[in-house]
C-alpha cells in the first residue's frame, strides 16, 4: 500500500480508477461530482487514455457503451438526475453484457432537487433504473478510503460479471477530504492486447474469426427468454458471493441500526453514545446495496428493534431491511431528506422515542 495522502473524495475516486487500469472516461458536468471529470480531463491523456466531455449524460453513457464494447476499461460518473438520464443505457449495457463502472455521487431529489448529500437514489440504483430484467451491482462506501478500494475492485467485478457496477457515494463522501492510501496501479489492457484478453470485444475480425454482432434487440421473443435464462445465473451467483457488510457492536444488540454510506458513520457515533448510556445498540452497515446483505440478518436473536437510518423520506433502504428481517423484529425509520443530514444527537434522541413506543 502506498503512503496515505490527504485527498478530496472525487479526486481520490478518479485516481483510484486510473490505478485500476481505467483509461476511458466520459462525463457531463453535474454537481456534486464535477471534480471527477475535471481530474480526468487533466490526467487521462498522460496515461494514453481518452476523456470526452459529452454533450449530455445520454451521450456520455453511450460513449461508455461503445468504449466498453470495444474492450476498454471505462468509468462514468454523475449525480442522481444525471444517473436517471443514463438508466436507459445502463439497461442496454447490462443487456449486451458489457463491463462499465459508474460512480453516482448522490444528491437530493426528486427532480432537479438539491445539490446536498442524499440517499434517495436507493430505489433508482437497486430496483429501478432502466427497463427490463437485469440488476446493477451496487457498492456503497462510507469513507474515501473505502470508496477507492471499492472502485479499484469494481472494474474486476464488472469484467467478471460482464455487467454495470455502480459505486453509490453521496455528496458528503465526494466533497470532503480524508487521508487515503491509493491502491497500486495495474497495467491496462489496451490496443492489440484487447483481442487476446477480451475475445468478446469489438476489435475488427481481421479475417480471422466470424464478425461479432453485439445486439440488444430480439425480434423473436422466445429467443429473448432463452437469452435472459442464459445470463440470469450470474445474478444468482452475485447474490451468493458479493454480499458485503460490516457488523459494529451487533453481538448483544437489542436495537440494530441499518445504515450505509456517510450516514453509517453518523449511526456509528449514535451507537457509541447510546452504549455509553448502557443501551445495547449495534449497526449493520451494508457495503453492497445490490445484492443486499440479507445474510447479515440471519441471526436476530434478542433484537427487538431494527431501525433503518437513511437520507430518504420514503424509507427506501427500510423496505429491503423489512424483507430481510421477515417480521422477526419491529422495523422503524430514522431519516432526513432533501439534502438535510442527520446528526448523532438526533439519531440518539429519535432512537429513544422509538424504544419508548415499544413499551
Amino acid at each position, binding site marked *: 500500500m502506498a503512503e496515505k495522502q490527504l485527498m478530496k473524495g472525487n479526486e481520490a475516486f478518479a485516481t483510484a480508477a486510473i490505478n485500476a487500469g481505467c483509461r476511458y472516461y466520459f462525463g457531463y458536468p453535474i454537481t456534486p461530482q464535477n471534480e471527477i471529470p475535471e481530474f480526468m480531463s487533466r490526467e487521462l491523456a498522460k496515461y494514453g487514455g481518452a476523456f470526452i466531455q459529452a454533450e449530455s449524460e445520454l451521450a456520455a453513457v453511450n460513449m461508455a457503451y461503445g468504449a466498453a464494447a470495444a474492450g476498454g476499461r471505462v468509468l462514468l460518473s454523475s449525480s442522481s438526475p444525471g444517473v436517471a438520464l443514463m438508466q436507459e443505457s445502463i439497461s442496454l449495457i447490462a443487456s449486451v453484457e458489457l463491463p462499465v463502472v459508474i460512480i453516482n455521487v448522490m444528491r437530493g431529489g426528486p427532480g432537479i432537487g438539491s445539490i446536498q448529500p442524499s440517499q434517495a437514489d436507493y430505489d433508482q440504483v437497486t430496483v429501478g433504473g432502466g427497463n427490463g430484467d437485469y440488476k446493477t451491482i451496487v457498492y456503497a462506501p462510507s469513507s474515501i478510503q473505502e470508496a477507492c478500494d471499492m472502485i479499484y475492485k469494481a472494474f474486476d467485478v464488472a469484467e467478471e460479471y460482464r455487467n454495470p457496477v455502480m459505486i453509490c457515494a453521496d455528496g458528503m463522501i465526494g466533497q470532503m477530504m480524508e487521508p487515503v492510501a491509493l491502491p497500486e496501479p495495474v497495467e491496462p489492457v489496451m490496443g492489440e492486447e484487447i483481442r487476446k484478453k477480451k475475445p468478446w470485444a469489438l476489435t*475488427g475480425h481481421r479475417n480471422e474469426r466470424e464478425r461479432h454482432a453485439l445486439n440488444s434487440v430480439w425480434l423473436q421473443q422466445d429467443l429473448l427468454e432463452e437469452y435472459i435464462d442464459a445470463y440470469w445465473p450470474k445474478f444468482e451467483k452475485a447474490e451468493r458471493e458479493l454480499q458485503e457488510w460490516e457488523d459494529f457492536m451487533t453481538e448483544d444488540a437489542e436495537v440494530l441500526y441499518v445504515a450505509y454510506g456517510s450516514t453509517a458513520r453518523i449511526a456509528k457515533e449514535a451507537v457509541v453514545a447510546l452504549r455509553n448510556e448502557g443501551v445495547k445498540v449495534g449497526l449493520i452497515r451494508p457495503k453492497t446495496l445490490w445484492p443486499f446483505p440479507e445474510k447479515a440478518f440471519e441471526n436476530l436473536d434478542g433484537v427487538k428493534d431494527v431501525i433503518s437510518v437513511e437520507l430518504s423520506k420514503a424509507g427506501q433502504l427500510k423496505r429491503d431491511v423489512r424483507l430481510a428481517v421477515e417480521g422477526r423484529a419491529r422495523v422503524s425509520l430514522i431519516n432526513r431528506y432533501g439534502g438535510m443530514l442527520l446528526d448523532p444527537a438526533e439519531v440518539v434522541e429519535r432512537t429513544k422515542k422509538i424504544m419508548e413506543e415499544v413499551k
Partner: protein
Amino acid sequence: MNTVFEYTKGMREKEMHYCPGCTHGIAHRLIMEVLEERGALGNTIGVSPVGCSIVAHQYMNVDMLESPHGRAPAVASGIKRVHPESYVFTYQGDGDLASIGTSEIIHAAERGEHFCTFFINNAIYGMTGGQMAPTTLVGQKATTCVEGRTVKQAGFPLRMSEIMSQIDGAVYVERVSLATPAEIRKAKKAISKAFDVQKNKQGFAFVELLSTCPTNWGMSPTDAIVWLKDNMVPYYPVKKFKDVEEV
C-alpha cells in the same frame, strides 16, 4: 471464363428482411463494397441504429454494435477512442439521426470525430409503421399526419446535410441519391471519400443517401423511385456541400 462480377465479401449470405424495393440493401452493399475494396473489412467496426436497419449486423460482414435510438454517434465516439486506427461508421435513419439523435450527430461533428456517418433519409419512420419523420415532406402522408404534413401542425422538414455543413468539424458533407444506377455509382464514390477522410484523420464525414420506403409510402418500388426523384430531390438537393483538400 472471366469473372466480371462477384458478390462482395462484405455482405454475409443471409436473406434480407427488408421490404421489396427498399434501398437499404443497396446502401449496405455500397458501404461493404468500399470497405472490401480497401481491404478493411477486418478492421472496421460499425454501429447500427434503431429502425429497420437495427439488424444491419446480420448482413454486414464487419464487427458491429447496436445503438440505442439516436445515440450511434456517441457510441461510435467511444469505440473510436479505444480503436483509433480502425474504421468506424454509423448507419442511421432519419428518425434516429434527425429526430431523437440530433444532439449526438451535431456534437460528434462539432468534435470533428474521426468516423463516418451514413444517413438514410427516406422521409418516414419505417420500422414503427410509417409515422411522420422530421424529414417527411410538406404534404406527404404518414400515419401521424394522414392528410399530409402541414407546416401549421408540424413545421418544416429538416435538411440535415445543410445543417451539418455549417459545423466546422464536419469536413466532408455530401447528399446523394439511390434512385438510378448512375446516382448509385456516385453514392459509392461519396462513401469511399468519407472513409478516405476518416483514414486521413481530417475530421467528420457525413453522407446523406436519399432512399425509398415503398411499403410505408404506399407505392410500388418503381413508383417510389419516381416519387423520390420528383419530390425529395427538389427539397433535398443532391450535391456536395463541403469537401476537404486532397492530401
